[in-house]
Each structure stands twice: as C-alpha cells, then as structure tokens.
C-alpha cells in the first residue's frame, strides 16, 4: 500500500514522515526544505496490521497548479502514480489556506486522510477547531497530530485511520464546488478556484474559532524588524555565520578532533603491534600508511564536520533561514539573483549536493542555473579538513583563515553573479515572495540526530570511496611502471609521480608545482576529503592533529617542511581547492538541476578558471608583497590568466549587445 504525504510547504510533512517511518530525512523551518520525493515503510511499532505500508514524502505545494519545479513533483505523483491513500497534512494554525489544496486532492478520487498537524500550536494561539465537524463536512477522517513529539503525537491514530480507510475501499467524494469540471478554460478555472476558496471560507467559519487576530503586531514581528534592519541585517547575518563556523573550526571542533585522533593513533599502534615484523613491508605500508593513515587523516576531522552540521541544523530549525533570504534579496537582485539564492548557498556549507538541489525553489531559470553554479563556491563540510589543515600548518590555527574563506566565497559569488548576468544578457526582473515561518527555539534533539546522521554518512564514505582512493594512491606511489617497489630515496619515479608531474607544471605559477599537490587536487574531484587523505599518503604524514598540544596540526613546522611550500603557496592551494569545481557527485547534481549541457560545461569551465585565476593572484601578489618579487612561473600564469579573463570579457561584451538589442526592441 503506497501512501502519499502531501500538503502546504512547512506544514511538517518530513517531520511526520521521519516520525512515522523512523527515517532521518532533512527537516528545516522554512518553506521548500524537501525538494524531491522520498519513500519509507511505516515502522513496525506503528503498523500492527499485516499490510506493508510505504509512505512517500513529497515536496510542499500550495495547489495542484505548480509554481516551481519541486511543486510539479507533488502534482505529478498524486495525479499519475495513483497512490492508494493520500495523507494530506494540514497546518492546524492555517486552515483557511491549507484546505484549498485539500479540496483539490479530494477531487482525485483517492481516499484522503487529513493529519491536522501542529495541533499543539493551536492551544497556544487560542484557536478552537471542531475536528469532528471538519471530518463530517469533508467526508474523510481528520486526525490531530503533533509530529515533533515522540509520545501522544496522534501518529498511532493516523495509522489506524489509514488501515481503516484502506479496508473500506471507498472512493473519496469531492467537495461540491460550483462550476467544477475537468477541461475548464483558464477563465472558467479562475472562477472555479474563486468558488473553491468560498467553499473553504465557509467550512473554516463553521469549524474554527480564533480568539487572537493574526494580523496583530507580535514579538516575532519585532525580531523581524531587527534581523532585517537596514544597517543591522547584514552584520547580524555575519555574526551568526561566524559563530557557526568558528564553533566548528576554532573552538569545539578542534578540541573534539584532538580527543578523537588519540583513538585513531591508538588503533594505528594496535594494528602495527598485531602485524609484528613478519608482514611484508609493502603490505604493512599499504595498511598502516595508506589505509589507516590516509583514512585516519580524514576521519580525524570528523568532529569538526559534526559540530558544523549540528550548528547548521540549529540554524535551519530556528526560522532564520527565511529571514536571511529576505535580508539578502535587495543585494542579490543587484547581481541578478534573488534572495532565495542564499538558501542553497547556506545549505551548501554543509554539502553542495542538497544545496544545488535546493535551487528548485527558484522560479526564474537563469537565476536557478546561476545559483546552482555558484552555490558550490561555499566551502562544504568535506572541504573543512582542507581548511583546518592549511590553517593549522601555515597559519598557526588562526580562526581568521577559516572564516575569511567563507567571506571570500561570498565575494567570489557576488563577482561571479555579476559576470554571469552580463554574459547571459538577462536583465529581467523577478518577484520575491516567501512565507515567513514562525521562529522557534531550535530542537537540540533534532540537531543531534542530523549531526549523527551526517557523521554516519561521512564514516561510510571514509570507509569506502576514501579508503579505496587512498589504497590506490598508496599502490601507485609504491610501484614504478615496471612494478618494482620504488625506494624511499626516489619517490619521484613512482607511477603516481609520473602521472601527476605533468599536471604539476600547470600549478607552478600558483606556487604548488609539486606532484603530490597535483595528485591530491585530482583525487579531490572524487571526494574533497581525498585532498587531505592523498597529502597524508603521498607525504607520509600519518595524522595532522596533535594529541598533546590540543592543536589541530602535528608540529606544523615539520609538516610545512615536508610539504616544501611556504604560507603564501599554502593559502593559494587552499583557495584553488575551494574555488575549483566541486566533487563529481555535486557536478552530477548541477547537471540534473541545470538541465542544459551548455550551462553545465560553462559552469565547470568557469569554476576551473575562477580557481586558477584566484589562486594565481593569491600566490603572485602575496609573494610580491612579502618578498618584493613575483613568484616562479609568473609570466606563464599571467598569460593563462589573461587568456581566461579576456574570454570572459568577450562573452560579457557579447551579452551586453544582447541587452542593448532587447532594450531597443522594447523601445521600438
């Protein structure tokens, strides 16, 4: 039995889905968190019947006429994939709007069960709803639910209602709406929908009593005035973002990471002792340095990532995300984007894949594609180990390095937005509208669940993709092309070195023309965590976190000596890894959201160019300021950068001609 979960955005569908199936899908307090459908069976503790019940969580929709692409998923699913039952989640605090969609769902003939969610809030807001009367009028069961609660949440009654209605096998009767018919013209449809709202209004008048006027000025409105203040809005946003990243990268994260690495070190010694001296040196190096060392170097940073996800979950649960969108709208409009573009960017600081998918809530195609292209510039959780490593090795764990990378990302996004707007020649104006969810105190429990879920995914990734990559890297650097073991004195003759060396040439103007760095940058495209793993394996540094000193990196001067580059080149390498294209999985997401090979390849080329030019500028200007002369390979890098910049300028000029042409046409 397939059950669809449908309802207005931010009515709590995914929270209910998680509660009913025991899954841990992403939730948040803003409309548009869920952008794809997800399935899961009703958990055994709730489903006492014999029938298997599969629930399908759908993106929120206000009606059957989709406005954005994620709403189409919902419409298409309920219309075309004919689920057996629809659970229509209705926000109990907002009957008058929600029932519009309900009435449309009832016309599909599929049995509907209403989950009157957020029932706890109606007491607070002094709303009285006659559930029995509502059920009688609609002709379907209405169950009060509080999906955020673990007990007395109404979910048992909801599942019982589903089982009962499934046994009855009755078709859902629609509400009587004047003029309702299939194949209505646009004008007729407008009239039908007006009549539909009149019917809904009548129902609400009969079943609902409100003591408090919703349009009065509330405490929430006062908070909005402050967080969206003309001058304070941006500083408040900056402080909040700084807190999120500082806690994960400078305070709590490193402390936890230190404890954690102690365990990994212990494990390393344990395996070393267990193997004894009888194991072949090649196998021992592969296992200890390649697998445990490489994976351990990455996993050591897990606590940083966990703290970041915990903080992000708190932020997403608070209701502030929707406010960031409205604060940023006026600035983002100037670069041809909308305030809604900021949400995918913040989500991308966790992982770019959900970030890119979150662009579905953006209506304008160019804005959506541009946002999908720019969101990966925000450093994701997987890039956190790279930031932490380089901040530790070259900058004495200074917090400003990490935080400044996020602000540099914002500058890069603004600059890129302007460039892309000019290239596309699109100056069309768009509207901004966003439902403002109520602020709430973020749930620590939900944040912990989200954090543990991400940690699990990270460990699985470390134990699979990263482990395999590190093992391959270790093998490739152990042998030469004749499959002879390469001695420690001649590591440059290994297969890996010979593959990466030609690439290293390209990086000379960026300050890191060393094959190990080239190899790490390449494995980084498979997963960004690989950068740290590959550096650990190729430079034979087994861990980067010091257990004695509570500092993030083992004897940073030692590591710096092994790396053989200075601080400026280190910063340049960091910038290169942060601003070149994201991992392959994220590129896959870009492909599906952009729906255009031209845009996808344009985006990848642009990201590559951006990473290269920025890195070149950081290294060469940094070297010029510190030593008074340009660094190695300046001329070659300058020519390459100028070629890339000239091409972008050429495209921008071409785009401007399009703007002038379209303006002239409009005037004519």
């Amino acid at each position, binding site marked *: 039995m397939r059950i669809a979960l449908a309802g207005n955005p931010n009515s709590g569908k995914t929270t209910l889905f998680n509660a009913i199936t025991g899954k841990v899908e992403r939730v948040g307090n803003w409309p548009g968190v869920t952008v794809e459908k997800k399935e899961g069976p009703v958990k055994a503790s709730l489903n006492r019947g014999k029938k298997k019940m599969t629930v399908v969580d759908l993106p929120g929709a*206000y*009606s059957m*006429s989709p*406005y954005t692409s994620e709403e189409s998923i919902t419409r298409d699913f309920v219309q075309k994939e004919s689920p057996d039952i629809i659970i229509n989640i209705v926000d109990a*605090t*907002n009957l*008058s*709007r929600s029932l*519009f*969609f309900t009435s449309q769902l009832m016309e599909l003939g599929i049995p509907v069960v209403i989950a009157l969610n957020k029932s706890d809030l109606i007491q607070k807001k002094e709303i009285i709803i006659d559930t029995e009367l509502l059920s009688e009028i609609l002709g379907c069961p209405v169950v009060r639910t509080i999906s955020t609660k673990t007990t007395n949440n109404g979910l048992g009654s909801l599942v019982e209602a589903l089982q009962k209605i499934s046994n009855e096998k009755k078709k859902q009767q629609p509400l009587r709406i004047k003029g309702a018919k299939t194949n209505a013209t646009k004008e007729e449809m*407008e009239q039908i*929908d*007006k009549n539909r*709202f009149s019917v809904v*209004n009548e129902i*609400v*008048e009969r079943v*609902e*009593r*409100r003591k408090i*006027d*919703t*349009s*009065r*000025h509330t405490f*929430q*409105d006062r908070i*909005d*005035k402050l967080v*969206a*203040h*003309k001058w304070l*809005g941006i500083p408040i946003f900056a402080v909040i973002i700084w807190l999120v990243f500082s806690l994960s990268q400078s305070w709590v994260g490193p402390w936890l990471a230190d404890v954690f690495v102690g365990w990994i070190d212990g494990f390393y010694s344990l395996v070393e002792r267990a193997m004894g001296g009888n194991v072949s040196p090649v196998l021992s190096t592969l296992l200890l340095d390649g697998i445990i060392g490489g994976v351990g170097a990455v996993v050591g940073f897990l606590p940083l990532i966990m703290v970041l996800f915990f903080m992000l979950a708190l932020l997403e649960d608070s209701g502030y995300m*929707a406010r960031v*969108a*409205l604060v940023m*709208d*006026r600035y983002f*409009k100037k670069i041809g984007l909308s*305030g809604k573009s900021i949400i995918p960017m913040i989500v991308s600081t966790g992982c770019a894949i959900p970030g890119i998918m979150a662009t579905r809530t953006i*209506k304008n195609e160019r804005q959506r594609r541009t946002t999908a292209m720019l969101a990966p510039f925000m450093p994701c959780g997987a890039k956190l180990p790279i930031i932490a490593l380089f901040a530790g090795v070259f900058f004495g764990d200074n917090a400003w390095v990490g935080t400044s990378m996020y602000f540099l990302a914002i500058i890069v996004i603004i600059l890129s937005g302007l460039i892309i707007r000019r290239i596309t020649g699109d100056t069309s*104006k*768009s*509207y*901004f*509208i*966003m*439902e*403002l969810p109520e602020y709430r105190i973020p749930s620590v429990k939900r944040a912990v669940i989200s954090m543990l879920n991400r940690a699990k995914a990270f460990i699985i990734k470390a134990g699979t993709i990263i482990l395999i990559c590190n093992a391959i890297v270790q093998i490739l650097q152990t042998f030469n092309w004749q499959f002879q073991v390469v001695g420690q004195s001649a590591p440059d003759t290994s297969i890996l070195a010979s593959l990466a060396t030609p690439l290293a040439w390209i990086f000379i103007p960026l300050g890191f023309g060393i094959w190990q760095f080239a190899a790490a940058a390449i494995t980084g495209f498979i997963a960004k965590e690989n950068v740290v793993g590959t550096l650990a394996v190729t430079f034979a540094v087994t861990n980067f976190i010091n257990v004695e000193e509570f500092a993030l990196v083992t004897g940073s001067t030692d590591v710096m000596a092994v790396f053989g580059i200075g601080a400026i080149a280190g910063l340049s390498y960091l910038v290169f890894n942060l601003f070149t294209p994201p991992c392959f999985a994220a590129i896959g997401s870009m492909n599906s959201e952009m729906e255009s090979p031209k845009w996808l390849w344009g985006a990848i080329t642009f990201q590559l160019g951006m990473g290269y030019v920025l890195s070149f500028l950081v290294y060469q200007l940094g070297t010029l300021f510190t030593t008074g002369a340009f660094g190695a390979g300046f001329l070659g890098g300058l020519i390459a950068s100028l070629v890339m910049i000239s091409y972008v300028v050429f495209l921008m000029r071409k785009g401007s001609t399009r703007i002038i042409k379209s303006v002239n046409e409009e005037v004519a």
Partner: protein
Amino acid sequence: MNISDCELHTEYLIVSVMTTEEDMKDFLFTLGCYPGERIVLISRLPSMYVVDIKNSRYSIDDNLARAICLREPGCVAPSSLEGRVV
C-alpha cells in the same frame, strides 16, 4: 493604492493583482491573494513588506507590492467583511 501606501495593521481589500508574470498571479491566487480578499500590512522592511494573507505571514519585495492594488478601508462596504474571522 498599493501595499506601499498602506497603514500598518489595517485591513484592506485586494482590488487587482497586476503582475507581469501570469504564473505569479496564479501563485498568489493559491495563497488567497486575489481580488475581494483581505490583506494586512504587518511591517515595512528595507525594500520588503511583510503582509498577512489568510493568517499567514509573507515577505514580498517592493516590485510585487506595487503589483497588488488595494482599496482603502474607508471605501470598503462593511458587508463584504462580514463573516470573516478577525
């Protein structure tokens, strides 16, 4: 008049919705923002307005605010508001 001329926390009736995108007009309809319905301005923020439509708060930019024409409260026939939950 439009939202930018409204007084705060006062009920107005929507006269017309004149957006350049037809899709946006349809979308606003599904939220209950269409001629004859009520709308209340909650607060003015920089380049943004917070409005209450059918017991929900929305932030809309000044572009959209200008597209929604309203009728002054004084011009509203009392009967048209009867029966609405306030």
